């Protein structure tokens, strides 16, 4: 009995468990149903909320779209004015040697090569106009006005057209422009890091080769930057001269490559050649002693290797950067000076470093040197071709400050041995530009 008594609760409880089990299942099912209904309602509400939010956000977005302009300004004829930029280049200079006697031992110089006048001076004021001509062409002209002691000289520095929609990465340039040679030749002098051009540019290119012609270049479709190109020119500018060969007296060729290493390092390497014919090209100032008057007929071949390396933290050039840049030039001349057969080679290089150590402030140093031909025909001894054992060199130090990218003030000290007596030169220079935004070239 006691056992029965003991068992009953068990059975009862087992019984009630069985009954409770059904209930639990029911409740669970009910719960699940409610949960699903609730969830679908929740999802529905959420979707609606999202839709409303999206709509609200979309309405906000719509309000921010730039209004589509209807009509446009009535054309007054000047709306297509080209971009205009003016560059001022003022300076104060002091030289220990007489600047009008400027010469470089062993190198008869092209016209306009020199250090410029001493004292206060306004160098060239450049006015640039540029614009697209059509969907095919871009055009640019730079007019340099030099109002010095010899009166006002207006020089058409550049006037060229350039294609913008040729296939295969090709660009054709035609007109007057600075040929793609070395690194500095293509750049206007006011973008240089120093107030004057280094010795090899002065001696071999009369500071810059600028001529009338055409130039075709291809940027190759490679990850590494590669550009290859060639030009044909009139041959009117030093080291050509006399527009020989019916006005096709000079040819150029160039190959450049470059890229980045990480974010902080960029480099460019270039090789270029200039072949120039000259017929009766005169060098030396008018009225100079006969020893300085040389006319050259023959060929000049100039080979140039150039490089530029730039470091800046994360590629941010605003606060700090370092640039190391150099070029090496080798010149072969074959022809005759004053009718005396001459065949010679000379070379030169420059290497410069510029460090921007804080926003707006840079310091720089440049060394350049020439290695003149030292075996001369007897008849040419004592002329400007005769370096008399001097290998000209130049040390330059500069410090410049830019308040913003349109204004720059520079101090430069140079010590140069291009003649028997060393020259100490001191420059204070300002370069300011107004109007169109100049390009940040590399």
């Amino acid at each position: 009995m006691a056992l029965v008594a003991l068992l009953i609760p068990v059975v009862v409880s087992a019984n009630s468990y069985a009954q409770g089990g059904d209930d639990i299942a029911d409740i669970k099912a009910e719960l699940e149903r409610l949960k699903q209904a609730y969830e679908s309602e929740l999802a529905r509400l959420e979707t609606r909320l999202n839709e409303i939010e999206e709509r609200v956000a979309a309405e906000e977005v719509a309000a921010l779209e730039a209004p589509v302009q209807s009509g446009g300004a009535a054309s007054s004829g000047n709306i297509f004015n080209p971009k205009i930029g003016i560059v001022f280049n003022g300076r104060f200079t002091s030289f220990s040697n007489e600047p009008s006697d400027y010469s470089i031992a062993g190198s008869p110089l092209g016209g306009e090569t020199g250090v410029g006048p001493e004292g206060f001076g306004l160098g060239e004021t450049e006015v640039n106009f540029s614009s697209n001509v059509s969907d095919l062409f871009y055009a640019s002209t730079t007019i340099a006005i030099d109002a010095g002691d010899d009166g006002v000289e207006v020089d058409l520095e550049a006037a060229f057209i350039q294609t913008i929609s040729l296939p295969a990465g090709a660009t054709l340039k035609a007109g007057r422009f600075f040929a793609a040679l070395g690194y500095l030749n293509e750049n206007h002098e006011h973008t240089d890091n120093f107030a004057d051009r280094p010795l090899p540019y002065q001696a071999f290119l009369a500071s810059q080769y600028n001529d009338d012609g055409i130039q075709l270049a291809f940027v190759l479709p490679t990850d590494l930057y590669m550009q290859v190109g060639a030009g044909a020119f009139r041959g009117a500018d030093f080291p050509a001269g006399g527009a020989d060969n019916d006005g096709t007296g000079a040819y150029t060729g160039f190959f450049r490559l470059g890229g980045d290493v990480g974010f902080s390092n960029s480099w460019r390497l270039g090789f270029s050649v200039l072949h120039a014919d000259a017929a009766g090209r005169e060098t030396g100032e008018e009225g100079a002693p006969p020893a300085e008057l040389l006319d050259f007929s023959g060929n000049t071949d100039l080979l140039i290797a150039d490089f530029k390396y730039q470091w800046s933290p994360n590629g941010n050039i605003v606060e700090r950067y370092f640039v190391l840049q150099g070029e090496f030039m080798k010149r072969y001349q074959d022809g005759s000076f004053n009718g005396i057969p001459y065949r010679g080679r000379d070379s030169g290089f420059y290497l410069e470093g510029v460090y921007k150590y804080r926003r707006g402030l840079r310091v720089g140093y440049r060394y350049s040197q020439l290695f003149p031909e030292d075996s001369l025909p007897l008849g040419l001894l004592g002329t400007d071709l005769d370096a008399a054992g001097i290998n000209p060199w130049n040390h330059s130090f500069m410090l410049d400050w830019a308040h913003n990218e349109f204004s720059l003030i520079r101090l430069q000290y140079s010590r140069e041995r291009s003649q028997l007596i060393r020259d100490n030169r001191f420059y204070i220079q300002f370069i300011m530009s107004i109007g169109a935004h100049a390009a940040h070239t590399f």
Partner: protein
Amino acid sequence: MFRQLTFTLLILGFAMTAATAKAKISIFACEPEWGALAEEIGGDLVKVKNGTNAKQDAHFISVRPSLIAMVRKADLVICTGADLEIGWLPTLLRQSGNSKIQPGTAGYLAAADYVRKLEVPTIIDRALGDIHPQGNPHIIGDPRNVLIVARKLAERLAKIDPANRATYEQRLARFESRWLQAIAQWEAAAQPLIGLPIVVQHKTWVYLVEWLNMSVVSTLEPRPGIPPSTSHLQAVLKDLGESNPKFILNAAYENDRASEWLSERTNIPEITLPYTVGGSKQADDLFSLFDVTIAMLLEYAG
């Protein structure tokens, strides 16, 4: 001899040009935010290269050889516009010799052309600093602008690559929905920022400030692009008075000297926001860029 050499090089150039075949649409983005957007819309169909990174000031970029090589191969160039890249982009496009991406073609997209711009100056004079005649170019501060640009970008991609039009449209629709959701969430989260007094270093933040309704009590740079002098900062310090700003904002690519100067003297915290994708470790896409930005602002809003 030189003529022959040159001729050979030219032939070589032609040959290499002809030999290229490409599968993906190649996109050059002037700034990382547009590169990230191009990846959202283009997915696997595009190959994106960024011309700048978040640590660089997109105004001061030089036309480096690497950039010319990138643009040479691009089918589409997407940039901010509004003269942000005026110092380098026009030259870069011309030097690339690539006819597909010149202004006016389908391959050239300037984002700021399609959004309403703030701070359009009425007086245009460089004495006022580096001003932008078309308005402030820092449109990435407002995520709503991103969507407007996304739609334009999808349109352009469909034009350049019509075979994949449907995919671009789908990807845009998906991005649009996700982005609108995200905007709503950011806006909800940013409620505490409404009316918050703040100081900014440069006028980088107008769009962000306008979107979140914060209140700029002072700008450290008196003229855009010209760093403030100590005397100017002293004047700013004096003028702060009772305005009680909560923080000083600057961007990852900016030198924070001015912010630091003021922060040291006032104990107002300085916040360096990523500004764009990649500006901080967490900000690795467009969504996380704004997640991080809002979170940083909220942290100091207290």
